[in-house]
């Protein structure tokens, strides 16, 4: 949507317009300026428009990129995309502008005598391969690791998994989706035995109520929120925001209900108590399609190195579950959740009304939680008890943060415990992977090794001596970077960073590899609604920039695994995808052929007999259902979903006399995660140039803190200085502060805690105790 900038005035006019667009986007959730995109295209431009998914969030909006003479000139929403129907958010409009950043990594850099030296890519890849081989020879295969991304393309994730698990024979592969989606995965697997949402975005067109659980969709999933607002205005659909902080989403919703951090567990149980107590249970659905189970409790929080936990599920019956819920009457829960009895009953009544269709949405609020798996289970309980699931407009829907957290991290399986189909612990799954990869079955280890947090702890301890990160910036995004940055700086570990721009992570690398950006390569992403999307390379990248998949293949070849990676540089994306598809053959997860993906603006899997499956587990829509009933939760051996008995347990660290505030961290609409791309897009950077710390006005007054004054926020782990923000973007509850994490100059993750959910191993960025002082 931007033009070639011929002079300073036109640049300034464009900046003025974009500033206003960005301001409008923060004031009016879901606002769209579609016509402006067309107007921004230069007169007489002869553009070649190609489709792609957006580079940024997990919504997976379709974009059209206009190129001319090898340059990306314009971006607009793809009107053929069922996801966004031509709409885009401010990040989407401006995404290709970062390619032009002057500090782009265009060549490999190798650290020699403390200085980075520009090095031919072939030589740098030799160094990486030799170092990896040498480390394995000296210290064993579990001394090397790869840490990839929910922004890696499907082929990139696939070859990383094949290299580590199939060729080298180590499960030392994990990804940054561990930091955002692992609790959703564990929730799906424990409740349904199959990952990813059963519904799709079309639910928005049918639901009467949207209940958002700790989810600021107006800023994080703006196009979906815009679709919800449209239904609110057109059909009177209602949006209920259930959160710990008042946000743009809260103010645009019909009702905002605030709760004390961590007590979402108790409120979800109280809703279930009310549903049962009022006779709102869908008895026939529960009897036919659900089991009841409980697991271990008092699991700890993973704060110590080498922490291990395995749940021990135990079947219970409905009466046991009902008895358990007696501790969660609205009256009891109201006392510590700070949610009124009336509001708990209000929420329960919405879910309990058989004539109202309800979709629950959540993202990081529920997933980045030391009981993340449990809270995912508990929201599924609500939908299962009422039978409001797997139907248009009725269902629980876990949104993803990254554009291919589903397609790559979860489906390809770039986690330590995963394989492209199934898990390493399952012999059948290992045998399938070995067959398709053409490697000895025994080579794939049966035990997972390091999840993300433990991987960086192992680097710090010196157990991992070689790590290669791709498409991610862990030294800004990990919790407790105050430990992991010095850990990565140690000489005991050789660090390879593959990225598009310099970051605090590349600052500690021994070798920096110059990666191609999104449209400089072909690829595939998979979004939150199981939609796989393909795009073709549109422009040449600068210098020696190369797709990550191809750099992984080149290293594999240099290590002697060339026979396992027989792909061609020109067609490797297609060849890899066709190999990968074999893992998911069948009605439960069939992927569309590449020819279809090239034509369509995305296709939802399971793709069966030429059709997407929009609602899984419902026999009316899902051809994989085979039990002769209306619903079939075929992920579980007996075809039944599980209603879990999961209690409320407190957070590992709560405010006390020394550290009296809750710290909550998150994102803002202008920036994508650690800001390495969006901070290089002038209009977005100008709109939100630095991080800040939000206060409740009464807390700020008590502390004598005024807007814009510098404040030091300190935890038991570290500190960070930021300007105060009072009554601006968001409003925390009293006793809570909020800080966005996009700003590498204000490292709030030096302050956060690396506690995680013992089942999913996903860290909790939303709750730790801090003190604040004016500086």
């Amino acid at each position: 949507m931007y033009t070639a900038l011929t002079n300073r005035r036109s640049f300034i006019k464009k900046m003025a317009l974009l500033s206003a667009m960005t301001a409008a986007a923060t004031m009016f959730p879901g606002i769209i300026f579609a016509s402006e995109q067309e107007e921004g295209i230069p007169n007489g431009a002869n553009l070649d428009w190609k489709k792609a998914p957006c580079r940024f969030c997990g919504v997976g909006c379709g974009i059209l990129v206009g190129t001319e003479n090898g340059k990306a000139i314009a971006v607009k929403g793809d009107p053929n995309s069922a996801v966004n129907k031509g709409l885009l958010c401010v990040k989407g409009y401006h995404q290709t502008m970062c390619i032009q950043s002057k500090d782009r990594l265009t060549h490999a850099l190798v650290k020699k005598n403390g200085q980075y030296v520009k090095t031919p890519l072939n030589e740098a890849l030799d160094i990486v391969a030799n170092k990896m081989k040498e480390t394995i020879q000296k210290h064993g295969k579990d001394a090397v690791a790869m840490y990839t991304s929910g922004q890696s393309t499907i082929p990139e994730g696939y070859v990383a998994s094949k290299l580590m698990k199939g060729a080298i024979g180590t499960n030392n592969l994990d990804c940054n989706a561990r930091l955002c989606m692992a609790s959703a995965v564990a929730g799906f697997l424990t409740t349904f035995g199959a990952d990813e949402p059963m519904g799709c975005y079309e639910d928005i067109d049918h639901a009467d109520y949207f209940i958002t659980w700790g989810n600021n969709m107006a800023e994080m999933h703006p196009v979906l929120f815009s679709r919800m607002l449209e239904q609110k205005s057109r059909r009177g659909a209602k949006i209920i925001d259930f959160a710990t902080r008042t946000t743009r989403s809260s103010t645009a919703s019909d009702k905002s209900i605030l709760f004390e951090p961590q007590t979402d567990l108790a409120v979800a149980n109280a809703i279930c108590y009310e549903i049962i107590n009022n006779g709102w249970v869908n008895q026939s659905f529960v009897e036919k399609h659900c089991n009841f189970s409980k697991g271990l409790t008092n699991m700890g929080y993973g704060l110590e190195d080498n922490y291990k936990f395995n749940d021990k599920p135990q079947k219970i019956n409905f009466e046991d579950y009902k008895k358990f819920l007696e501790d969660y009457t609205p009256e009891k829960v109201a006392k510590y959740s700070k949610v009124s009895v009336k509001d708990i009953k209000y929420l329960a009544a919405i879910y309990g009304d058989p004539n109202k269709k309800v979709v629950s949405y959540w993202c990081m609020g529920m997933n980045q939680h030391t009981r993340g798996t449990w809270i995912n289970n508990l929201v599924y309980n609500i939908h299962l008890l009422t039978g409001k699931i797997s139907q248009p407009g009725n269902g629980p829907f876990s949104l993803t943060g990254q554009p291919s957290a589903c397609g790559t991290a979860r489906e390809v399986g770039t986690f330590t415990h995963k394989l492209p189909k199934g898990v390493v612990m399952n012999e059948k799954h290992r045998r399938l992977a070995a067959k398709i990869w053409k490697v000895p079955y025994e080579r794939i280890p049966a035990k997972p090794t390091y999840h993300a947090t433990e991987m960086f702890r192992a680097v710090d301890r010196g157990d991992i001596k070689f790590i290669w990160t791709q498409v991610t910036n862990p030294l800004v995004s990990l919790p407790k970077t105050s430990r992991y940055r010095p850990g990565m700086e140690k000489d005991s570990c050789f660090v390879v960073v593959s990225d598009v721009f310099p970051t605090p992570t590349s600052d500690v690398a021994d070798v920096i590899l110059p990666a191609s950006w999104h449209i400089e390569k072909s690829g595939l992403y998979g979004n939150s609604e199981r939609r796989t999307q393909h795009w073709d390379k549109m422009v040449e990248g600068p210098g020696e920039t190369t797709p990550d998949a191809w750099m992984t293949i080149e290293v594999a070849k240099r290590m002697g695994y060339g026979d396992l990676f027989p792909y061609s540089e020109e067609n490797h994306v297609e060849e890899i995808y066709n190999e990968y598809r074999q893992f998911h053959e069948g009605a439960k997860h069939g992927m569309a052929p590449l020819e279809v993906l090239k034509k369509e603006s995305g296709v939802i899997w399971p793709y069966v007999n030429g059709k997407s499956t929009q609602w899984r587990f419902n026999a009316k829509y899902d051809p994989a259902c085979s039990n002769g009933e209306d619903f079939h939760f075929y992920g579980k051996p007996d075809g039944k979903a599980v209603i879990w008995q999961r209690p409320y347990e407190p957070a590992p660290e709560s405010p006390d006399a020394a550290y009296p505030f809750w710290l909550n961290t998150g994102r803002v609409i202008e920036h994508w995660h650690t800001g390495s791309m969006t901070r290089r897009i002038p209009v977005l950077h100008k709109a939100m140039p630095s991080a800040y710390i939000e206060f409740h006005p009464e807390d700020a007054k008590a502390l004598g803190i005024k807007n814009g004054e510098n404040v030091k926020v300190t935890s038991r782990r570290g500190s960070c200085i930021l300007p105060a923000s009072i009554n601006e973007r968001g409003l925390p509850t009293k006793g809570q502060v909020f800080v966005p994490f996009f700003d590498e100059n204000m490292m709030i993750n030096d302050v956060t805690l690396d506690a995680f959910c013992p089942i999913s191993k996903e860290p909790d960025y939303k709750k730790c105790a801090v003190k604040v002082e004016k500086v």
Partner: protein
Amino acid sequence: MPIKSYLAHPHTGKKNELIKALSVLHQCEVTPAQNKEVLILVTETENESEEESLKEKIEAIESLKLLAMVSGFNTPQNN
């Protein structure tokens, strides 16, 4: 040479009227939101007195409810 951007809020049901009224002023570029009752106005004038005079004209438009400035720039005359 001031360049300024504003969010212009129309009175209820008057968005199209406001777009038309602003579009006839040659110093104004209007970008309406597709799905909200608001539009972006970018003004470019030769000097501050022209800017002030333009602002008076804009504020006299009946369909305009509120004009909120977002950003303002001054560029050298020779650009």
